[in-house]
């Protein structure tokens, strides 16, 4: 469904992505682990097209999308959430989700009707709000909801484009363990055919959801396999000593 081949990116002399090759099957849920600065976010930016790799390619549903701009990739079914909230501050939760759903349904550029009032848009808004527990907050402005709820909305907005592949950059960063757990239950309840790639800091939480695990270190894939194998990996223990000990 989503594949990268020998993706490489450097900023000057700093190599942030080294020869990364990944392959996600349809419906696969893969977690990317790795210490801070390993190049996880930079990899996401290249997947969605916000950064251009120096070499290598990105393939979505069998098509080489490396040369496609961000918006076109998104319309092909690739959607992402950000590590740092990237919401429509000042608008309501409903409007945040609606703007995304309007793009997906083609209403975002249609002149003759109110895109946010369209039945198909409202339907997606309600569905997504249900999926990520935003129902009670629909009419609240982003500035009026708590940080944890904003993190849910961050993923909700990405989901509202009804993507084939959902990329989530540390969706639970900065929220307590209680809420993170609840969030992972949410992810487990999403449709099984949705392909998910997400960055997670906490290993144990990652194991809740992951079918497969990729570990990045210094921009390089140092592990790619099943969660059980990852648990026993010595390399991983060394890289991840901090959070391993904590857990």
């Amino acid at each position: 469904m989503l594949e990268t081949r020998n993706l490489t990116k450097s900023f000057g002399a700093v190599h942030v992505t080294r020869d990364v090759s990944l392959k996600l099957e349809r419906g696969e849920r893969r977690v990317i682990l790795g210490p801070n600065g390993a190049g996880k976010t930079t990899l996401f930016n290249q997947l969605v097209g916000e950064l251009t790799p120096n070499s290598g390619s990105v393939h979505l549903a069998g098509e080489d999308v490396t040369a496609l701009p961000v918006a076109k990739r998104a319309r092909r079914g690739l959607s992402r959430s950000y590590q740092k909230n990237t919401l429509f501050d000042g608008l309501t939760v409903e409007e945040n989700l609606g703007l995304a759903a309007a793009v997906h349904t083609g209403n975002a550029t249609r002149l003759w009707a109110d895109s946010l009032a369209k039945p198909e848009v409202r339907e997606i808004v309600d569905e997504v709000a249900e999926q990520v527990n935003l129902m009670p907050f629909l009419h609240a402005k982003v500035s009026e909801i708590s940080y944890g709820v904003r993190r849910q909305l961050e993923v909700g907005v990405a989901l509202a484009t009804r993507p084939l592949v959902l990329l989530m950059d540390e969706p639970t960063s900065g929220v307590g363990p209680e809420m993170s757990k609840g969030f992972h239950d949410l992810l487990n309840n999403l449709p099984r055919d949705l392909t998910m790639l997400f960055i997670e800091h906490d290993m144990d939480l990652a194991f809740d959801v992951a079918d497969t695990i990729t570990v990045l270190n210094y921009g390089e894939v140092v592990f790619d396999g099943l969660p059980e194998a990852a648990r026993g990996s010595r390399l991983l223990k060394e890289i991840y000593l901090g959070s391993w000990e904590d857990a």
Partner: protein
Amino acid sequence: MFRHTALRYTALVLLAAGALFQAFTAEYFGLEILTEILILAMLVLALDIVAGFGGMVSLCHGALMGVGAYAFAILSTKAGIAPPVAMAGAVALTGGIGWIIGAICSRSHGIYFIMATLAFGQMAYSYVFEAPIFGGDDGLGGISRLDLSIIGVDLNDSRSFALFCLAVLGAIYGASVLILRSGPGRSLSGVMHNEQRMRALGLTVWRVKADVFGLSGMIAGVAGALAAQHILYISPALLSWTVSGEALVVVILGGLGTLVGPLVGAAAFVVLKHELSAVTTYWHLVVGLLLIAVVMSRANGLFGWVEARWGARIERRMADATRKQQPEEVLSDA
């Protein structure tokens, strides 16, 4: 995202009532001032759509209005096209030019966007100034107003023309609301709040900017064609960037991104201009001081200030009132 509130409806009703009162009671000079306000109001609505709801602060809207005025004048006088068709042509032209400017400037933001639109405006200004067909510095005369004699209206009468402009302004206000609530209008609001995210969601951002800028250009074109019919003579000064600057002052004075505020701003600005210029030649100083006071007060213009002070209270009253009404309705149903 645009929303009508009780306060906004109230302001609209008051403005319309004031305009109608003026239109029916004023003499020639008062009617001229009213018409000037109404045409400026159209221009500032066009500007508020792009600047207040899209973050596209344009310094070429005066030039777009001027293009509308010249296009109408040339088409209806030199090309001998019937005035209504000439007006439609002028509006289509300004819409097209607006769309192109919006598309080209869509990649720039902030000060660069302002400078790019200024450059387009100055290009139009110098072209109109230099090209012989436009009459250069002397301008163009011999313009006639639309002929509405079929419905028994003579637009050469100041009162009728003012009322006609009021009707057109009403239609433009309605169209502006529809534009802001349309797909591109909503998406543009999203772009203003977070362009990166809208793009990541799959929106072709430049298209939405160009579309709304084009629609806004059409409104500026209507204002231009009516300005030409109002003064019956046009000169390149109409395209000067200071016209755009003045429109921006009016939008900010009234309340950026409120649609109703700029209408208030247009009325306040023109009345102030005429009242003050009768007293002192330094009236610009007073307007300048007022603008500085408004900007320093951190309120969103005159209307924004009113909204911040009374908006919430009025909304609450209205909510209470409707809540009280509901049980009665249930009773009457039973």
